[in-house]
């Protein structure tokens, strides 16, 4: 029958779709823009990660939480509880997103996932230590400091102001004077001297007396951040 149409071959069907304008080539700038957005997204993610991780390191150092594991099992348990889990989980989430973004590129997917994942983790943690070593968070992280540098009732950073019996007097970052009671079972590597910055781990007895479970010198001088 003459009015029956012969079915189109695949090349004919594709050519017809192109000819009639149903199918159009995407312009080159579309792909350049897409690639640029992916790179910008990746760079922003890295910057956010650097900020978060450096803040976690800065917080652990300046609040004294990072020194608490030195006080044995009790110290470790308190350390785990005191970790900023929200920030840590957020960082893990961003690392996963960054990994997904990077895996689209041949330099990443041609190698086992572990390599790119370890690369990203090492890069952001090393970068985090570098940023945390500057005064960046003291100056520019006011909101984060208020949210996460909350006062802890059993971890007390401060500066030794004078001796008091077997213990000493200490001024905390809020300007409060605390009396630190040192007992024979207090864990302390050495006796802190006048003007030393220390971390005292122990419960407050009354309003301004701390029974020290452990004392350590704090090499970080950034006491003012929790103000």
């Amino acid at each position, binding site marked *: 029958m003459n009015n029956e149409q012969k079915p189109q071959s*695949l*090349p004919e069907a594709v050519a017809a779709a192109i000819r009639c304008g149903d*199918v159009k*080539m995407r312009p080159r700038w579309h792909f350049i823009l897409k690639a640029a957005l992916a790179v910008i997204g990746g760079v922003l993610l890295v910057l956010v990660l650097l900020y978060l991780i450096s803040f976690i390191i800065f917080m652990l150092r300046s609040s004294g939480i990072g020194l608490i594991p030195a006080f044995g099992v009790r110290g470790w348990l308190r350390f785990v509880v005191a970790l900023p889990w929200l920030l840590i989980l957020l960082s893990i989430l961003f690392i996963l997103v960054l990994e997904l973004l990077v895996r689209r590129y041949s330099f990443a997917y*041609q190698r086992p996932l572990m390599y790119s994942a370890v690369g990203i983790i090492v890069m952001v943690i090393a970068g985090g230590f570098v940023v945390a070593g500057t005064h960046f968070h003291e100056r520019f992280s006011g909101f984060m400091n208020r949210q996460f540098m909350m006062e802890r009732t059993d971890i007390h950073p401060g500066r030794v102001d004078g001796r008091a019996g077997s213990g000493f007097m200490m001024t905390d970052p809020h300007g409060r004077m605390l009396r630190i009671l040192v007992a024979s079972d207090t864990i302390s590597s050495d006796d802190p001297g006048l003007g030393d910055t220390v971390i005292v781990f122990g419960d407050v007895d009354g309003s301004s007396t701390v029974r020290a479970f452990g004392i350590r010198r704090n090499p970080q001088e950034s006491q003012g951040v929790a103000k």
Partner: protein
Amino acid sequence: MAVSADATDEAITKAVQAGDSNAFSVLVTRYEQKIARYAKRFLLGGEDGKDIVQEVFIKAYINIKSFDASRRFSPWLYRIAHNEFVNAIKKRSKSPVFSFDFDTLFPHPVAKETADSEMSRNELKEMLEKSLDQIDVKYREPLVLYYFEELDYGEIAQVLQIPASTVGVRLKRGRDMLKTIVKKYE
């Protein structure tokens, strides 16, 4: 400007990118059978096979300006086909095709096929043809690409976007699966 019949895929792609849409028909003609064969073996038939193959070429045309003509055209086209086929399987099964693959996590030594392997390549192809439907899709695809489409490890790695060592692992596991299936029916 018409492209010559013996022009390379990459030269034809360059012509298409420069605006010679007719040249694209040459690529469609060259790869029509291969992609249809790949679809048949990967998707195990289905009424929508022909439409999906057509969609592969249409997607290739739409995105042709993203192709880097200094690289090989066939893995790029197979990658588009892979994505389309995976989407088609997802639509059919309404469940995730590939979950997280731990094989891509750690490095593996690349185990290349040796000439003195237990079964010859042709025997293997024959057995595969009969048993493809019993092999998990994760292992079926590299087997199809390696034995039927004759892509090498590097090209399969490009198509599936996984490390070449993982291609080797999947091929080995696929062959082991095939041997188990064959033994079951002996």
